[in-house]
């Protein structure tokens, strides 16, 4: 009798523990449940709880097996993946190699926003039901990382639901995949109201172990920062992000805490180094940014610690590199900034022929990066000490990005997070000489050093990891010696979390529900 009582008490406790609901608020919503429709962090993060890829990330951001149990290179351009057995999609269909071949074709095809990730993939071949080969156009040493956000969908389900192709935003042909989901992931979508509420429940047939105890997740977008803070403070949500910098201290007391960590994104400034005369400057007939001394003077005149303390309230990590920790290719030895030195900077300016400085316009977004507008103001104030008068043109991202992307700028701010988690993406997008094939596409000041370009090309095909790392190091050294850009910092992620909740924060800002635990009080 006593045993039976204890048993039922235990059962009651378990059922209480298993009914855990966690409510999450984010500033935005996933636009669609289709995992191939948009290449955006939040979209990918939300969908990664429902759909899985062959290789994913573990709690320390290392590449880890998901739907593939192992992989190896069978030739420089061919990778073989062994697929996990006994995996079922949410509708019960077993997962096989056909689904992988189908999903890669879908992700690389028309309407997909994930095409760019698969540009190097030549063919995906089924070897048997649980083995596939991926052949790339050229040796691609980082393939498992590159495909870590390519979600696998069910071929059968997509065909039955007219969702063989991702929703094409251009034509507005909506399909089932944008509102319903059928993945292999640890959570299923129960209810979806775009921009209002999305409810997830734990997948009882999940192939793996789910570390957390969460049974239900209610995801709500709350765009207004103060409303988001209030929702957490009043206990109406358990997790919210991002936390506005000024609220970090306040939320770090009582029933809530703030989890911070460096984000992969690096914030930096760029200068027009191509035109013979700057578009927006008092200097006529020449371009002062072509002179390395001027770039170095700008670099050393910026009080990055001051910015960290007063504007970022310690929620930033000053950097000397264009990548931060967590990105393959980052290394601590190289990550040493030139010292903050106003006198030295003044001397450099005088040597370069600008003893009394000059005037230049700076373009800056006000709603894209953490405190972006204020950082630009601080930089302008710093530069005034070496005689540079900065005319700050700060504007909303809607008008800012088209402006700088057509290179209608002399001096600008940008942030970059490599989608491949690898330095090569940064080097080729930001520092390679700009061409019309996509190299240097975001090298908006057209910095160009042929020597660096050569190294970047070598990195692309080098498969030997130590050699590749050495090449990346060499590439960064060339860029640093040139002072090609002015790196500022990696901003911090800040998640506001109830003290009842434990979770794992990844540097790429992905939130995995499977690692969330709600403590019983």
């Amino acid at each position, binding site marked *: 009798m006593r045993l039976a009582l204890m048993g039922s008490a235990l059962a009651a406790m378990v059922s209480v523990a298993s009914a855990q609901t966690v409510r999450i*608020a984010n500033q935005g919503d996933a*636009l*669609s449940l289709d995992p191939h*429709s*948009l*290449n*955006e962090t939040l979209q990918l993060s939300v969908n990664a709880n429902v759909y899985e890829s062959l290789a994913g990330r573990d709690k320390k951001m290392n590449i880890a097996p998901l739907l593939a149990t192992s992989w190896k290179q069978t030739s420089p351009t061919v990778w073989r993946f062994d697929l996990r057995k006994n995996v079922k999609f949410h509708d019960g269909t077993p997962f096989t190699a056909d689904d992988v071949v189908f999903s890669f074709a879908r992700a690389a095809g028309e309407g997909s*926003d994930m*095409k*760019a*990730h698969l*540009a190097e993939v030549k063919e995906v071949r089924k070897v048997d039901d649980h083995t596939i080969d991926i052949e790339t156009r050229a040796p691609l040493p980082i393939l498992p990382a590159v495909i870590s956000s390519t979600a696998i969908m069910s071929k059968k389900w997509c065909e039955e639901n007219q969702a063989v192709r991702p*929703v*094409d*935003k*251009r*034509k*507005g042909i*909506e399909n089932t995949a*944008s509102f319903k989901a059928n993945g292999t992931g640890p959570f299923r979508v129960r209810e979806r*109201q*775009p*921009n*209002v*509420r999305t409810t997830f429940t734990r997948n009882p047939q999940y192939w793996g172990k789910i570390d957390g105890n969460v049974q239900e997740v209610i995801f*709500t*977008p*709350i*765009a*207004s920062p*103060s*409303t988001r803070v*209030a*929702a957490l*403070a*009043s*206990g*109406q949500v358990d997790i919210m992000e991002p936390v506005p910098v000024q609220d970090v201290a306040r939320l770090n007391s009582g029933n809530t805490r703030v989890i911070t960590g460096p984000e992969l994104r690096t914030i930096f400034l760029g200068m027009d180094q191509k035109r013979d005369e700057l578009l927006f400057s008092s200097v006529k007939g020449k371009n002062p940014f072509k002179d390395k001394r001027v770039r170095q003077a700008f670099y050393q005149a910026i009080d990055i610690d001051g910015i960290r303390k007063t504007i970022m309230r310690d929620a930033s990590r000053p950097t000397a590199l264009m990548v931060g920790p967590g990105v393959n290719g980052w290394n601590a030895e190289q990550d040493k900034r030139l010292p903050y030195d106003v006198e030295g900077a003044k001397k450099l300016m005088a040597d370069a022929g600008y003893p009394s400085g000059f005037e230049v316009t700076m373009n800056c977004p006000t*709603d894209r990066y953490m405190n972006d507008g204020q950082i630009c103001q601080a930089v302008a104030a710093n530069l005034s000490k070496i005689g540079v008068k900065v005319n700050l043109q700060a504007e*909303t*991202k*809607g*008008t*800012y*990005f*088209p402006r700088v*992307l057509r290179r209608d700028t002399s001096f600008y701010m940008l942030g*970059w997070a490599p*989608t491949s988690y690898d330095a090569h993406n940064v080097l080729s*997008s930001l520092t390679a000489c700009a061409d*019309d*094939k*996509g190299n240097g*596409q*975001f090298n908006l000041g057209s910095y160009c050093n042929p020597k660096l370009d050569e190294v970047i090309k070598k990195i692309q095909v080098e498969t030997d990891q130590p050699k590749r790392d050495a090449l990346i190091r060499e590439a960064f050294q060339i860029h640093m010696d040139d002072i090609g850009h002015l790196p500022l910092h990696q901003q911090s992620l800040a998640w506001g979390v109830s003290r009842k909740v434990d979770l794992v924060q990844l540097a790429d800002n992905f939130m995995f529900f499977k690692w969330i635990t709600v403590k019983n009080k």
Partner: protein
Amino acid sequence: MGAFILRRLLQAIIVMVSVAFIAFLLFQYVGDPVVFLLGQDATPEQIRQLRADLGLDQPFFVQFWHFLVNAAQGEFGLSLRQGAKVSRLLGERFPATFELALVAAVLALVVGIPMGVYAALKRGSFLSQVFMTVSLLGVSLPTFLIGILLILIFSVWLGWLPSFGRGETVNLGWWSSGLFTVDGWLHMILPAITLAIFQLTLIMRLVRAEMLEVLRTDYIKFARARGLSDRAIYFGHALKNTLVPVMTITGLQLGGLIAFAIITETVFQWPGMGLLFIQAVTFADVPVMAAYLCLIALIFVVINLIVDMLYVVVDPRLRVSSAGGH
């Protein structure tokens, strides 16, 4: 009467086309949606292709003509950001905004009119002074501040009311209503008060001023001389005449409530049209913005039309002049 309505309808159409044109013109400057549609990894070729697919490479007047032709059929094209029909998005969001505006309007009337009457009748009393002071605050405090203060007090400090969202809703066909659940009403309170406060103070001050005006007129003096009770004078004669201008203003303000719910909806994450509009602005989603502005203009035009016609019904003097033409 028929000619009058016809003329007003023609005017309304001209207004609508002008609004559409101005809206469309403005949006040439809000930015480039393509930047947000394609990620950072998109190639220049993909960007060119998308621009061509969306028709963004066509001249302004061609784009405007397409917009106008579609709009006349109630079709506003596709949201660039969400890839869904704009008409459907607005349709989904309209009930939330409408219910919020309606509750706010009722609140403003039910509270504002008695307060105004009281402030007029007991002009010197302490409570009237309080009403007047508070109403000054209501007019001068910005809406977002009122909303945040209410959230701070009633959600964060006291924990009585929810701070965001619409709560549980019930679907009546395509109309999703929050008016039939307790949860829905709890979520309604703070945003409705926030949205109502400005209207409430406006109505209160209007009622007070009109009432004072009416009380000075001769027929009130005659009524008094006839020995009618205060109650009959105030509520039977004075208030009735006060309410005519109040009704007009309220009608127009309902349009205003719907249009200016933007701020309230943003503060309370109220899933209405205003929030949709703000989200559209962030991503330069031109079709949504243009459709929203046209819809708001339409609401104003229709309400104005109705008010004009009601005038004719209420005031016989207008009937003569309108029939004769201007």
